[in-house]
């Protein structure tokens, strides 16, 4: 989806924040947020890709309100989809924890998605051989589904070179929607910065890992 999460190349987010050497959690609630998100796929019957897609669907203002905010809201969204909790319940519980006397809204009926899993993790195999080889020139498809994808806007329709074959993996575009794992070959594709950002760009090379359905022969 063309959402707020797809920030590669956007302007307006300001200068670099300080390189701090802090631990992972600034406050105890952040640790609890991490655990809820880390377990959310198990609790909701989802998967890693569905969790990422849930974070992408967090409203833009909330997405930008902080990492642990979007992480928690994404985890909750996936649980809402599976009938584990509702936003009304969370709001009511928050009010109760703040000392207000509010009734508990009705609990939803669990309705977890059912998708066969090919095992732990995301590395899989596929019967058909890879279409592309190292050295091939490839064009990134003009592909902008309304659902989940790992194809960022900034490489769409651009031409690059395959520099490595990566392991075949669960296809996020289908797994996030519980349409099956549909494993796909995956390629590291290398771009010249000027092919991404025009002749005035800084000189550098950009590599990104793209699944076979995202690519066409150039």
């Amino acid at each position, binding site marked *: 989806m063309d959402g707020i999460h*797809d*920030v*590669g*190349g956007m302007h307006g*987010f*300001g*200068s*670099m*924040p300080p*390189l*701090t050497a802090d*631990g*992972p*959690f*600034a*406050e105890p*609630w952040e*640790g*609890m*947020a*991490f*655990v*809820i998100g880390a*377990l959310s796929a198990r*609790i909701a019957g989802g998967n890693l890709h569905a969790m*990422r897609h849930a974070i992408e669907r967090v409203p833009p203002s*909330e997405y*930008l*309100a902080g*990492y642990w905010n979007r992480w*928690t*809201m994404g985890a*909750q969204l996936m649980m809402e989809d599976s009938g*584990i*909790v509702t936003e*009304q319940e*969370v*709001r009511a*519980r*928050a009010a109760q924890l*703040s000392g207000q006397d509010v009734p508990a809204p009705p609990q939803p009926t669990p309705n977890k998605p059912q998708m066969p899993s090919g095992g732990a993790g*995301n*590395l899989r195999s596929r019967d058909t051989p890879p279409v592309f080889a190292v050295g091939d020139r490839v064009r990134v498809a003009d592909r902008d589904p309304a659902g989940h994808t*790992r*194809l*960022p806007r*900034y490489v769409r329709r651009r031409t690059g070179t395959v520099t490595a074959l*990566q392991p075949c993996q*669960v296809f996020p575009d289908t797994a996030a929607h519980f349409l099956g794992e549909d494993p796909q070959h*995956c390629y590291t594709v290398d771009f010249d910065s000027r092919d*991404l*950002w025009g002749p005035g760009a*800084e*000189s*550098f*090379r*950009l*590599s*990104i*890992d793209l699944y076979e359905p995202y690519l066409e022969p150039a």
Partner: protein
Amino acid sequence: MTTEHLDPALRVEALASLLIERGLLDEATIETFVKTYEQSVGPMNGAKVVAKAWTDPEYRARLLADGTAAIGELGFKGPQGEHMVVLENTPAVHHVVVCTLCSCYPWPVLGLPPAWYKDPAYRSRVVREPRQVLREFGLELDAEVEIRVHDSSSEVRYMVLPERPPGTEQLSEAELAGLVTRDAMVGVAKVAAP
């Protein structure tokens, strides 16, 4: 649905309370996870990998050929480290890693990502003007150095093998590991000499 922003600390507390009540989460699990990522899984793991690669040429060769296996030799594996690729920085080539779409990061070797890595400023700009981004972080690279930016868009996870700083020939592997920083293993800093 109410759209007013709910304080995230309160949301987490409310959500956790409901999940615990429903038997879907418990305090002991929360404590174990937090302790693991605060104490055992962090950049000190990656620093050991780097120090070993600096002192053992055969390990370095294995690390660059098959990152997952070589990192696994030191016992580091797990979520977000299923397939690891190690990128070697040299005087001529400087690698830097990002995840523009979320904040994918190699947990087994670096732990959970720091705030700056998750910030939209870093994620948006490092794929467009990396030299300027590195400069703002305090790393000025010579004009001849080729910059290679890696966007972690699949389940492959990247870690940078930084250059060993000069004047460290006499240091032990453990002392070298103490010099290696998280920022250098993402590629936004160099390892400083002691």
